[in-house]
């Protein structure tokens, strides 16, 4: 197997992180293509199950990107999200997949740089952690049965 390229799913709030991602685009600030964005209306919409499913289906890392604390377009959705991410981290630790494959990050719509930087840091972190053990090495077949 050639150099490990992690696949990372980023659930991004429409009002901040997703906009920040677009801004990173218009400012042409590069970040690793490993990050695949899923747009949500608010990070508070991201269900613990979505995070688990992403990993189960083959993601090596997942992060939820919401608005800065106090800035949530819906008052406190970003906090709900943060709590859920914590819950999932614990569950993943129990599972043996490792809670550190999941992160909660916060940024505002104006932070194109921050978005790119976050994407890079997380990608590198996951790269270090190596492939999602539920996916590799012994049983790529198993995973694809999904």
């Amino acid at each position: 197997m050639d150099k490990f390229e992690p696949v990372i799913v980023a659930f991004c709030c429409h009002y901040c992180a997703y906009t920040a991602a677009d801004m990173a685009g218009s400012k042409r600030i590069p970040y690793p293509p490993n990050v695949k964005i899923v747009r949500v209306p608010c990070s508070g919409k991201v269900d613990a199950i979505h995070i688990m499913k992403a990993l189960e289906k083959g993601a090596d890392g997942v992060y939820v990107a919401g608005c800065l604390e106090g800035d949530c377009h819906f008052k406190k959705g970003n906090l709900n999200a943060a709590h859920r991410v914590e819950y999932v981290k614990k569950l993943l630790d129990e599972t043996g997949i490792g809670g550190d494959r999941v992160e909660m990050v916060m940024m505002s719509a104006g932070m194109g740089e921050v978005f790119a930087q976050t994407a890079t840091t997380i990608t590198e972190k996951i790269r270090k952690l190596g492939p999602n053990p539920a996916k590799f090495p012994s049983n790529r077949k198993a995973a694809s049965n999904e």
Partner: protein
Amino acid sequence: MITAERKPLEEIIECIRPYDRILLVGCNECVTVCAAGGRKEVGLLASALRMAFMKEGRTLEITELTLERQCDPEYVEELVTMIDAADAVLSMACGCGVQEVARRYKNKPVYPAVNTKFMGASVSQGVWAERCQGCGDCILGLTGGICPVARCSKRLLNGPCGGSTSGKCEISDDVECAWQLIWDRMKELGIQDRYEEVMVAKDWRTSRDGGPRKIVREDLA
């Protein structure tokens, strides 16, 4: 409401390790309300278990289903079509549900995925506390609507004991002294004088000390 909590994943994994096909059954009543065994928790557990097995290079087939109420035979009957396709059943219902499934499907091993905790009420979002022990002979009328049997660590009927400090129980600061509550309530109701009436030794036959209990409503039965 009956409250429960998911068992440690490790324990669950050990139970189902021998099997390849699991029928994971949730319940849409109490355990859903206390976020322990509803559709969502079923989904999360299924996902976690699949990954845990994949990690070991195994594929675990999990069929997810959440019944309306797992302690009623009619609902449990709904499993009949899929039970054969499973090597074992993992139930996220309270003990009642688990036993109902076991009773109905004699040849299928059934494992509990949650620990049934107590009969409680929700204090705030995500917090539940014990309120009743089902002693079968309710005395709330005498204790200002706060149950010493369920809420005093020593279930003293003539409390409080010497361990009560600033409203908290001696066993822990986050346990309220039931008798402090009772006393406060009595004052609210202006029935302090009742306090000195000695509450005589309780007849525990009505509680589970009298053996497994049963209710029969002849008119319905």
